[in-house]
């Protein structure tokens, strides 16, 4: 009843969110064993990449490819693993679509709680637990591979690197959440998610450094495919942070790229919100 309700201070939203985060953390910890194994498995594909690039460098007399030495390439792939640990959102889109299909999304129509904030809290919790479990295997692999890395960059570069990681988390979150909201229109989003993953894999830098696309023409004079990709959101979920650490993006170009990344975060956050609005309106009108 109204007299039992605490007044809504500016901190109330944050408090609610904090409680959601804590509860999601506890829930996630139930599955910590699953995480530990998953983390180690993630390093396996990188071994093939290293062999492949060793062969490529062995076949050419050039010391570098698109500005990357053999060591740079290995360091790049390892760093990309780290970036992906921030930006990838396993199960997010599918989970949202499932909650629409099985009706559990109703809870968020009935209770005074925002679904997007809730999903964000759940995902932060998911990531925190993941980092807690994954730090040791990550540290071990990076330590063993330390000779591939250039010297540790200066503080500004490290700060930019960390900022880009935080933004890549938000960008990945809002992109996948928006995809998941398509579940309000389509029964099954897995094929859409699959298509997205494919584009993501090619254009994010997960498969190869985007610098390799600098020589790929687009038909427009002076505009390479890398220039186009630069304005798309994908490279900010894998390539960008790694490139910062390796000193490939610096000065004004770095600031410019960070702004583009922040811009995409805002665009995707708005898209996600609009999709939620329109989706729930549609759900209310047709399904329920």
């Amino acid at each position, binding site marked *: 009843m109204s007299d039992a309700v605490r007044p809504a201070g500016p901190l109330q939203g944050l408090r609610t969110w904090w409680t959601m985060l804590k509860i999601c953390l506890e829930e996630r910890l139930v599955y910590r064993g699953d995480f530990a194994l998953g983390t180690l498995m993630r390093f396996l594909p990188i071994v093939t990449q290293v062999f492949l690039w060793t062969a490529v460098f062995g076949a050419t007399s050039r010391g570098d490819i698109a500005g990357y030495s053999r060591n740079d390439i290995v360091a790049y792939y390892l760093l990309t693993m780290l970036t992906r640990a921030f930006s990838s959102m396993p199960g997010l889109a599918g989970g949202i679509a499932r909650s629409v299909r099985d009706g559990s999304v109703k809870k968020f129509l009935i209770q005074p709680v925002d679904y997007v904030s809730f999903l964000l809290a759940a995902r932060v919790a998911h990531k925190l637990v993941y980092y807690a479990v994954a730090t040791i295997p990550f540290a071990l692999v990076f330590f063993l591979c330390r000779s591939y890395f250039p010297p540790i960059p200066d503080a500004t570069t490290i700060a930019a690197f960390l900022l880009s990681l935080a933004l890549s988390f938000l960008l990945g979150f809002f992109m996948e959440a928006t995809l998941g909201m398509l579940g309000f229109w389509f029964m099954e989003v897995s094929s859409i998610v699959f298509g997205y993953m494919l584009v993501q894999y090619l254009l994010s830098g997960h498969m190869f450094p985007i610098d390799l696309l600098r020589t790929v023409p687009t038909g427009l004079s002076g505009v390479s495919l890398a220039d186009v990709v630069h304005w798309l959101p994908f490279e900010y979920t894998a390539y960008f942070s790694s490139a910062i650490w390796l000193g490939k993006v610096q000065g004004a170009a770095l600031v410019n790229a960070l702004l583009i990344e922040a811009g995409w975060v805002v665009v995707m956050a708005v898209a996600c919100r609009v999709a939620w609005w329109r989706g729930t309106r549609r759900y*209310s009108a047709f399904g329920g």
Partner: protein
Amino acid sequence: MHNSDPAGASRAEPVIRVAGLAKEYRVYDKPEGLAASIRALFRRTSRVVEAVKGVDLEVGRGEFVALLGPNGAGKTTLLKLLSGIITPSRGTATVLGHVPWERADDFRRRFALVMGQRNQLWWDLPAAESFRLHQEIYRIDPARFEKTRDELVDLLGVRKLILQPVRELSLGERMKLELVAALLHEPEVLFLDEPTIGLDVVAQHTIHEFLRDVQRRRRMTVVLTTHYMKDVAALCERVVVITRGDILYDGSLAEIVDRFTTHKIVTLDFDEAPDRGLIERFGFPCEFRGPQVVLRIDRTRIADVLPGILGAAGVRDVSVEDVPLEEIVAELFRADSRAAAVAEAAR
């Protein structure tokens, strides 16, 4: 068959007002067979189903109302409309002065919906954690939260269970904890969609006692859908019967028995199985169960014929009862679907 004078005409302070509320769905036909399925890819046939057709309803503060009706009658759709999950095709509704489907937080803090098989509790965590989350999202004062929580778990006898992961609990235990979760923020209006479905008799009884107690003390307004007449008899003074999206009857439970039964059930006990001919000659439908005979006797004639029957040799005991509620309601539903079939044929 609308009740011309619904029980609520003189009701003070209506909490729920519904006028001409209707909900239509477009349903796409799923054809049988591969060829038809392929054709359906290009051209889907659909029809409009009216789940709720122009319902008028008023519920006053502190009322406990049962929505009865066969499967697909529109009961759950009505509850979904009232809790704002879906928007209507026509008509208006206010609950606590709010239009439910606008989903204002002010409104959402003041009601609760419990759906029988849906859980608001976190599956892998103890219920206590879900309660804590509710405290936060409903902004319940900490001291009040603890008091309410303790009171509710004690009433249901589930204090020991709140620290156990929900997935380890039985259906009945989960349902009790769902109810606690729904009542922590002391909602003024509670919607229950088949709260006792699949529960054993003991659990049903506990939940009845609990709901009755909490509802009275808080003067909470409760609307419940159910298939179990036991729920209705235990809890609700007012019954709204819905069939095919329309209100068929709205009145007191006592009145429904009065209006829709023409018979009483008379049970006679004999020392030994009586002579059938002796009983059958009274001309009432009867059923022989060894030394017991069950007769259905016209209510208007019972006073006239009973002495004669009792005069029959060897009656040891007699009881006169109303037709069970289940049977009355089933008959109501059947009569309605017969009427619908006739109307359909006449078109």
